[in-house]
């Protein structure tokens, strides 16, 4: 069985193969030679997963929310997503500003073609009883506006694109 996981700025492929005793798990990352581990499943109870990895006991807590996986060791949790095949919608970084929480668009302050300075307010959202300003991450030009005042937006929905 093979799984692919992505996070903020990376991704990996994990291959799981049964062995005589336990599993062989091979991890391939784009920037590295694949590494193989001997793994046995000691116990899985609800969110708690106990493995031995190369004979060292390890305790994890795992959860799923739709397509997202959360895996924690000690108190450090990692969020894993399915890899996005087109690499798009990588939010903020490429100038495409997305809503990161549900809310209502109170006002759109810019139009396509308009030049904006870093920090200029672009859209005002209302959420959690607060006004939130979505501001330009850098100097640039508004190339697209995807919402208008009154729209209800969901997390991940694109609002404005600045290049």
């Amino acid at each position: 069985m093979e799984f692919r996981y992505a996070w903020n700025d990376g991704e990996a492929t994990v291959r799981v193969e049964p062995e005589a005793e336990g599993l062989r798990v091979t991890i391939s990352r784009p920037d590295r030679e694949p590494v193989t581990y001997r793994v046995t499943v000691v116990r899985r109870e609800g969110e708690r997963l106990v493995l031995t990895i190369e004979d060292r006991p390890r305790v994890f807590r795992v959860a799923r929310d739709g397509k997202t996986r959360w895996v924690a060791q000690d108190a450090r949790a990692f969020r894993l997503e399915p890899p996005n095949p087109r690499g798009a919608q990588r939010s903020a970084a490429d100038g495409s500003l997305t809503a990161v929480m549900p809310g209502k668009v109170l006002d759109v302050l810019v139009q396509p073609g308009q030049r904006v300075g870093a920090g200029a307010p672009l859209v005002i959202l209302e959420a959690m009883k607060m006004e939130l300003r979505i501001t330009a991450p850098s100097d640039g030009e508004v190339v697209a506006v995807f919402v208008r005042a009154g729209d209800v937006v969901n997390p991940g929905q694109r609002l404005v694109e600045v290049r």
Partner: protein
Amino acid sequence: MTLFRKILVANRGEIAVRIIRACQELGIPTVAVYSEADAAALHTTLADEAVCIGPPPPLQSYLQAETILAVARERGCDAIHPGYGFLAENADFAAAVAAAGLTFIGPTAAAMRAMGGKIPSRQVMEAAGVPVVPGYHPVATDPAAQKAELAEASVRLGYPIRIKASAGGGGKGMRVVADPDRFIAELESARREAQNAFGNSTVYLEKLIPGPRHIEFQILADHYGHVVHLGERECSIQRRHQKIIEETPSPALTPELRARMGAAAVAAAQAVGYTNAGTVEFLLAPDGHFYFLEMNTRLQVEHPITEAVTGIDLVKAQIRIAAGEPLPWRQEAITWRGHAIEARIYAEDPAHRFLPTTGRVLLLSEPVGPGIRVDTGITAGDAIGLYYDPMIAKLICWAEDRADAVRKLDWALAHYLIAGVTTNIPFLQAIVRHPAYHQGMLSTDFVERHLADWQPPSLSPPDEILIAAAVADVQGYGVISVAEAMASGGEPYNPWAMADGFRLGGG
């Protein structure tokens, strides 16, 4: 014999849980009220009784004063505890509760009107000779005239200037304006937000004091004219005027300054015949001058740090005072031991301009140990919604001195697991590990000054995490829906047959 027959807790989340627990320890039954979003919430299930009061938006539930009062009467309550936020500083509600013959656990409506609004309280303090931040409150009532009046006053006071909502706090309706050209736009935005949050759009102006500390004093006042202060809390660590880390004692206060500021806080309470718990907020300028800021006529979010160092349970004290008991301590009997710090855990994304996050808390493990207290209304499986304050927990650490308390907080943050919802924990860690924080060099612009460009570290999951993810995916995440189970065959069957190899004995 008991203090009250039954108390209705007119709030939700961690503070409702805190109050219900205190009542249960005092042997007083409780009634929780809840919105449809909170039907399975901790405060709902913890209380002895729970009544749904409406849909999720606060205006339709937790702010429904009449409904809540009606529930209190129907359920035979003789007191209402408002917590903080929602109706806590609504003098009309306090008056209505009293008029219905119930006890409002808090100050009287009259004291609330005198001290609760920021504008009247400034006047009271000016009259009592306590210094206030230079400011201006509008005389005109017509919005357009107010706008002109405030614009003019802003020039007289000098920029940068602060716009503040007269009702409420938490940074809502607050704006700092550095450029006179932006004044009108910011004023309108502030008024809109204030109206939205507090149902009152009144704002006023204050001169900006650069680099101040936020120092507040907890007071308790009984019905017999006796007022004590329980020392200060330094709440200088703020982001967008929202307190995030509070501590006591303040690294900046000498015993002499503490005594003077405490006396001013007590004088403020006495000036209006204040009763119950309240907090007097000051700005402490780098030159050592302090200025009255406002009084919060309610329990404060950060009350646990005062409890940790004084050993006094403020919620129980509130209930006892409201029941007519005299304060059992003279001022000299109030002593402070050790150092306490509170960090507020918010559902917000430090990587995306701290915007509130929503989702479901999937994994939750709170730090425990000596000197660690977590106040929360969240349990694993709860949804963090859009309707309410994004604060999901308060982490309070107490230790023998400040250095130990800071290290304990650092430890506790590193051992606080919340997965499913992004939180500000990495940001809190960055503050607590900052050399300026270690040195106690605090000011309300600490975050802008030291962490303006801070970004959460982007961590690649180690191989072990990926191994665990894949093994979990091989096994699946279990539990089918009832519909699926039913569809797969409606025959009566024995659940035990599913269990590993178990066989019922014959006979």
